[in-house]
C-alpha cells in the first residue's frame, strides 16, 4: 500500500535542506512505528519518494512524500496523529490519501507550484505590471554548475500582488513578521523550472535575491489532468502553531 502525504514546513525548520528533511522523515517514521516497506539491496532503505525539493529557507504548506507501507493501514487518521506527534516543531501533516501503485512519481507529475513571497524592494508592483506585459524575461541562472541565460516569461503562469487579508492560507507567523510586498506567483516546474529566487532577480534586476526575499511560502503544487491544473492534494491551512 502506498500513501501520498502532504506536510507543512514552517518557521525555524525552514532552514533545513532537502537532505535534512529526508533524514527527519526517516527518523519520524521510525519513531511513529509506521510499517514502512524496505528496499532490497546492500543497504536497505525505507521506501519513500519525495516531491520537488524546497529551497533551503523557503516555507511550505504542501510538501509531498509518497511512502510505501509494508502492511496495509486502514486508519489513516490515526497514522496522521502518530506522525504529527513524531514530527519536529514546524512540520505537520496537511493531507494524506492512498495512491495507486502505478501513479507517476511526484517529481514527474507536478507541473507548477504556487508561491507567496514577501519582497522587500522598491516598486515591486510596478515591476510586476511590466513583467506581466513583457513578452520575454531574460535571467542569468545556474543549472548543474553551468551558468546560462534563459527566457523565463512563458514559465510564469500567474503573478500578482496580494494582501494578507486576501490569503487565508498564510500561517499566523507571516501576519506580523513579513516585511515587504506580498506577491503570489505560479511558476512552472517543467523543464528547467523556475525558482522563486529567479523570479526575484527578474523583479529586482541585479539583486542578491535573499537580501530582498524576506519570506517565501509554497502554497500549492499542481498536476495536469485532462488539460487542467489541479491540486495534488488540496492544501489546508497549517493547524499547528509553530515556534518563532
Amino acid at each position, binding site marked *: 500500500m502506498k500513501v501520498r502525504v502532504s506536510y507543512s514546513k514552517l518557521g*525555524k*525548520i525552514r*532552514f*533545513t*535542506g532537502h*537532505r*535534512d528533511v529526508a*533524514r*527527519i522523515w*526517516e*527518523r*519520524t*517514521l*521510525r*519513531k511513529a*512505528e*509506521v*510499517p*514502512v516497506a*524496505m528496499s532490497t*539491496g*546492500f*543497504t*536497505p532503505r*525505507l521506501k519513500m519518494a519525495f516531491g520537488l525539493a524546497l529551497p*533551503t*529557507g523557503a516555507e511550505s504548506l504542501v510538501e509531498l512524500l509518497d511512502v510505501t507501507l509494508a502492511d496495509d493501514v486502514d486508519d489513516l487518521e490515526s497514522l496522521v496523529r502518530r506522525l504529527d506527534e*513524531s514530527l*519536529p*516543531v*514546524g512540520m505537520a501533516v496537511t493531507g494524506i490519501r492512498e495512491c495507486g501503485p502505478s501513479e507517476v512519481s511526484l517529481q514527474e507529475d507536478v507541473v507548477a507550484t504556487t508561491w507567496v513571497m514577501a519582497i522587500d524592494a522598491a516598486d515591486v508592483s510596478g515591476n510586476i505590471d511590466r513583467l506581466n506585459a513583457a513578452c520575454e524575461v531574460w535571467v542569468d541562472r545556474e543549472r548543474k554548475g553551468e551558468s546560462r541565460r534563459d527566457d523565463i516569461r512563458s514559465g510564469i503562469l500567474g503573478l500578482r500582488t496580494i494582501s494578507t487579508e486576501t490569503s487565508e492560507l498564510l500561517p499566523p507567523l507571516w501576519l506580523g*513578521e513579513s516585511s515587504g510586498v506580498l506577491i503570489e506567483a505560479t511558476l512552472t516546474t517543467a523543464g528547467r523550472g523556475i525558482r522563486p529566487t529567479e523570479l526575484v532577480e527578474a523583479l529586482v534586476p541585479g539583486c*542578491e535575491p*535573499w*537580501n530582498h*526575499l*524576506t519570506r517565501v511560502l509554497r502554497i500549492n503544487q499542481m498536476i495536469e489532468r485532462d488539460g487542467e491544473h489541479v491540486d495534488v492534494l488540496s492544501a489546508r491551512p497549517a493547524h499547528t502553531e509553530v*515556534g*518563532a
Partner: protein
Amino acid sequence: MSSLWSRLEPLLARVRKPARYIGCEDGAASPQHGHGKVAWLLAYPDVYEVGLPNQGLQILYEILNERPDAVAERSYAPWVDLEKLMRERGIPLFSVDTHRSADEFDILAFNLSAELVYTNVLNMVDLAGFPVRADQRRPEHPLVIIGGHAAFNPEPMADFIDCAVLGEGEEVIGEITDVVREWKSSGRTEGSRSAVLRRLAQIPGVYVPSMYDVEYDGDRVVGITPAYPDVPELVTKRTVSDLGQWQYPKRPLAPLTEVVHDRLAVEVFRGCTRGCRFCQAGMITRPVRERPAEQVRTMITEGLKRTGYNEVSLTSLSTADFSGIESVVTSIVPDPTACGAPTVSLPSLRVDAFTVGLAAKVASGRRSGLTFAPEAGTWRLRTVINKLITEDDLYGAVESAFSSGWSRMKLYFLTGLPTETDVDTEGIVDLAAGCVSIGKKHTNRASVTVSVGGFVPKAHTPFQWFGQNGVPELRRKIGLVREAASKAKGVQVKWHDPAATLAEGIASRGDRRVGAVIERVWRAGGTFQEWSEFFDLDRWLDAMAAEGLSVDWYVTRHRDENEVFPWHHLSAGLHHDFLWQDWRSALAEAGLEDCRWTPCYDCGVCTGDGLEHIVASPVAPAGGSQGTGQNLTFGGSVPITLRPKPSLVNHDVVSAGRG
C-alpha cells in the same frame, strides 16, 4: 530577556548550512530562565556539526536542566560567513536553544577536546562582547570556564579563563552552580568577582589560574604556587566512581541536520588501562568504570525509540574491552523494529580476530571499511609505546576481516615516536603490504590505506618528557612512508599536515607565556585552526617570534627529570614517579600489562582516590591476546575486587540534580 532570533533570521538564508543555528533538535530543552537560577551557556568552540554530538556537553546540558536552580543552553562557533554578518550588525554570540545573547548567562563553559580550538574560544568570548582577558572582566560578565581533555594543561589559556575543571563534570557542575547561585543572589557587587573565584578554587577539581603565581628562571618554569593559603597547592581531577548512577543522556539530542556522528551514542565505559604511553585520553580517564550491561541495553532501546535513529554507536576508548559486549550486541541485533533492525557501530576497534568477529556480527549490508590502529610499524616500537599488538594479532584480525567480506582496511599510525628509527617508519608500509597480500587471497579489490599522524607529546603521559619531532623531520618520515608505499601495490597513504602538528605541540605543553601567542594568532584572524583551509603555521611562528619564545624550547626539546612542568600543580591522579618510571621503561623497550586483569602497579589513580576498577567480570573478555600481548589464559585467577556500592558520590548533588 529577549531573543536575538528576529535579528538573526534575515541573515540565515544568506549563509551556508543555516540549520546549524536553529536548534529545535529532538531532546532539546526549553529552559525557563529566572531569578535564583544559574544560567550556563555550554559552548563548543567548533561548528555545530562537530560540536553537537559531543557527549560530555549533552550530559551536562541535561543534568543542569534537571536542577531547579540552573538552566543550560548550547552554543557552537558560528561559521565565518555568519560571524562576519553578526559582527557587521553587532549581533553577539547566541544560544541555539532560545537564541539568547551570551551576556544573559552567568557561566560560559567551553568543552575543549583539542588544542587547536583555543583561538576559537577567544573568538567566541569576544563575539559574546566580553574582554578576552580574564583580569579585565567585570562582575557583570559571565565566568569563563573550560573543561575537557585539553583542560588538563590549561596554562596556555590561563589568561583568558576564570576556571578550568579537571576531569568529569557530572558532580562538580552542581558544586559550581551552588557557589555561583550565591554570588548571583548577592548582587555581583563591585569587586565580588575575585571573591567568587576564590571560593570556586576551593572546590576539588576546579583550578583558578589567577589564584596561582608562576615563577620563572629564564625560559624555565621553576614554581607554581597558590597565592593564598586557602587555595590548594595541587588540584586533582574529578572522577565519577560509578557510571551506573549517571544514566545520561536520557534525552539524547537528535539534530535536524547532518552532523559528524549521526547516530545514537551510548557510552559503555570510561577509562582505559591498556597503558598506551602516547595516549592522553587513556592516562587521564583512569580507572576503568563500566556501565552495567543492563543499563546499556536500556539506554540503547530507549534512545533508539526516542530519536528514531536506527544506528547506535557503543562508545569508549576500546569498546571490545567491555565485559558485556557480546551479550549487549547479540541482544540488540536480532531485535527487528518496525523499520528494520538497528545497526551497531563499534568505534575504536581493538586489533584482534575477536573484535572483527564482533564487527562482522553487527555490520549490516555493505562492508565498506574497517579501521585498526597498530600505531607503530615494528614490534620493538610498539613495546616502546606500549601498544602491545603482535604481527599475528594484526594479521589474524585482517585475515578474519577479509574473509568476512570486508575489502578495505584503514590502518592508523603515529610517526615521530620516541626512539623511532627509519626501520620503524618503513615498517609501517611492510605491515600494510602484509595486510594487502592477505587480502588478495580473498578479493582482488583488497586495499589498505595507511593514515599517518605526527605524534604530539601530551601532559600527564609518560611521553611528556619527550621532544617532539619538528616539521622537517616529520616531513622526511612521511616521505619515507610514501616512497615505500609507492612500491607496494594496494597501499595508499594519507597523512596529517606536520605544520598543524607543530602548532598543536606549541599549545599542548605550553605555559602561560604561550597565551600571548594564542591571542596574537587569533587577532591575526586565525580562527578554525583545525580546518586546513584556515590553518597557517606562519601565523603561529610569527606570534612565537613576536613574543620572543622559542619553538625548540616549547616543542622539540627533550625534558629531563628535573623539569617543572607547567601543569606541575595539576593532577590527573597519576603519580609523578609512575609516569617517570613508565618513561624509563619505554626507553628500555619494556611493556606494561593492563592492570584490569593483573595486579595493580600503583599508578596512583585508584589508590589516591579510594577508587577501584569497576568491571562487570573478573575474567578478561574472550579472544587472543586482546591486543595486549599478555598471556591471559590465567586471567580469571587474578583476584579482582568488584566494588560493591561506591560511596564517593556527593549525595547532595545527586539528589539536587535529580530533583
